[in-house]
C-alpha cells in the first residue's frame, strides 16, 4: 500500500499492490517492497515502467532492529531521466531474497558484493561467491556488529 500523497505518482501507483509503503523525500522516491514480491516488482519496473538500468544494489544493516537488513536497489530510467529506490527488508535470522539477476544482469556483481560483506543470500544467483574478500574469509565485515579495529571479533 502506498500512502495517499503518492497516489498521483505514476511509478508509485503502478507498484501499489506489491508495495509495503513508499515515501518521497529529498526529491527521491523510495518504494518499499515485501521481499517475496521483489522479482515481480523489478519485472514491472523494467518492462512496464521502462527503467532500463539497475544502477546499484546494496544493503543497510539496522542491527539490532528486526528485520535487520534493508536491501536497496537504485534504478534509472534513461528516457524518463528519473531515479527510483526500491527497498526490501529481510530478517537477520535467515537473510535471503530472490536474486535480481533474472531481470537485470547488472545485479550479478552487486549482489555478490552484498553477499560478501553482509552475508545476505540471493536465491537463484548464478555465482554467489565472495567477490572482494578471499574465499576462505570468515564473517561479514560490513555488518554493524563487526568492529572496525582489532585483530579478532
Amino acid at each position, binding site marked *: 500500500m502506498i500512502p495517499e500523497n503518492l497516489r498521483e505518482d505514476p511509478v508509485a501507483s503502478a507498484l501499489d499492490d506489491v508495495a509495503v509503503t513508499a515515501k518521497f523525500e529529498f526529491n527521491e522516491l523510495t518504494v518499499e517492497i515485501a521481499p517475496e514480491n521483489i522479482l515481480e516488482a523489478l519485472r514491472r519496473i523494467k518492462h512496464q515502467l521502462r527503467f532500463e538500468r539497475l544502477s*546499484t544494489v546494496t544493503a543497510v544493516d539496522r542491527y539490532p532492529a528486526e528485520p535487520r537488513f534493508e536491501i536497496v536497489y537504485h534504478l534509472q530510467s*534513461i528516457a524518463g531521466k528519473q531515479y527510483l*529506490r526500491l527497498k526490501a527488508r529481510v530478517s537477520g535470522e535467515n537473510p535471503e531474497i530472490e536474486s535480481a539477476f533474472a531481470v537485470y*544482469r547488472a545485479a*550479478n556483481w552487486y549482489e555478490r558484493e552484498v553477499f560478501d560483506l553482509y552475508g545476505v543470500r540471493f536465491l537463484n544467483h*548464478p555465482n554467489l561467491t565472495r567477490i572482494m574478500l578471499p574465499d576462505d574469509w570468515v564473517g561479514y565485515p560490513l555488518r554493524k556488529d563487526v568492529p572496525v579495529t582489532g585483530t579478532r571479533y
Partner: protein
Amino acid sequence: MSGANDSSALPDGGITTELEVEQDYEQHERDKSGPRSMVLNMGPQHPSTHGVLRLLLELDGETILKAAPDIGYLHTGIEKEFEVKTYQQGVTLTDRIDYLAPLSNNLVYCLAAEKLLGLEIPPLAQWTRVMLAEFTRLNSHLVWLGTHAIDIGAMSVFLYCFREREEILRVFEMFSGQRMMTSYFRIGGLALEPPRGWQKRVKDFVDIFPSRVDEYEELLTSNRIWTGRTKGVGYISLEDMIDLGVTGPMLRAAGLRIDVRKDAPYSSYEKFDFEVPTRTENDVFARYAVRIEEMRQSTKIIRQALEGMPSGSHQADAPGIVLPDREKMKTQMEALIYHFKIVTEGFRVPEGEVYQAIESPRGEVGCYMVSDGTQKPYRVHWRGPSFGNLQAIPKMIEGTLIADVIAGLGSMDFVLGDTDR
C-alpha cells in the same frame, strides 16, 4: 559457501565464472582427448590491467573461449571506514577511491551530504567545483590516453599526455596544496579560498590545451597502426551494456546520449554550454574519439568558468557546519564555540537517505548516504563506475583474439581502486 547453483539452469547471462574456467581446465587435464584449450592467468600484475585485475582466460590458440575477471585485490574497506569518520573527515576517504578522479569523488560525496543538510552553496563555490571537476576529467582522460596508447604500442603519446597532466596537477596544487589527494571540496563549499593568481594559470592552460589535443590526434587518429588495432575491436551491443551496468563514454560511443551533467544537472552545470559527444561505431576507436571530444568540451567548460566566475563567498553561510573564518574565531565568542564544536565532534546531519549521482570521467559515480541523525554517516555506499563497467568484460572479449583484450580493456578505462574500494 551456500552459493553453489546448478549451472545448467543459468539464463544466457553473458557471464562466466572463475569456477567454470577452472573446471574446464581440470577436465582437459583428466581426459586428454578432444580439442585442447589452455588456461591463461592474465594479471593480477599484468601491466595492461592497470592495477591489480586478474583475468582468467580459456584459450583455443589465440581465440578466447571464456573469460572470467577476478577482482578484490585492492579492497580496503573504505565503506566501513566511512561509518567511523565524521562527515567532514569522510571527504578525505573519497580521494582514495578513484585516485585518478579525486575531485569528482569529493564532489559527489559533498553533494550527497549537502542534500541531507539542505545547504545552499554560493555560486563562486559551485563554479569552482565545476571548473575543477572538468580539470579532473582532463587529468583522468590524459592518463587513460597515455596508458591506453602504450598498451597498444604507441609509446610517445604517453609522454605528451603526461606533459599536460603535469600542468593540471600544478593547478590542483595551487588550489588545494595537493597534487593528487586534493580533498578540496568540503561539505558547505571549498576548503580554502581560490588562491591569488589562479586565473592566469588556468588561462595559460586553456589557451594552449586545444592545440595539444590536436597533437594527440595527429599522432593517433589517422595512424594506420592505431586504427588497425582499434577499429572494429571490442564491440558489445548497447542493450548488453545497459543491462550489465555500463555507464559513461562506453555508452556514448554506442550512440546513446547519456550524461548526468545534462540529464540531472548538479552544481550549476545547467548554466554551462557544452555538447555531449557521441559516436555510433561502438568499438575501441569510437571510445577513443568520444573521449578526445570530451577533452575539447571540458576545455570549453573551463574557459566559461574562468570568464564568468562569480564573486562572493567560497563557503555556505552555515555557522554550525562550516568552520568560521580565522579572524572571527580569534575575536568572537560564538565563532570560537562553533569552531570548537565542529573540530571536536563534528556536526549532526538530519535523518534520511539520499542517492547522488554525477558524471565522473568514467561514468556514473553514485553516493548513497544514510544518516541516523548523528555526526557520522550510518552507511555510505559507493557506486563506482569502474565496477559496473568491468562486469561487461566477458561479454566483450569472449570470441575475440587475445591481442584485442588489451585494446578492449584499455577502452573501458577502469581504475581498480574504484572497483574494489
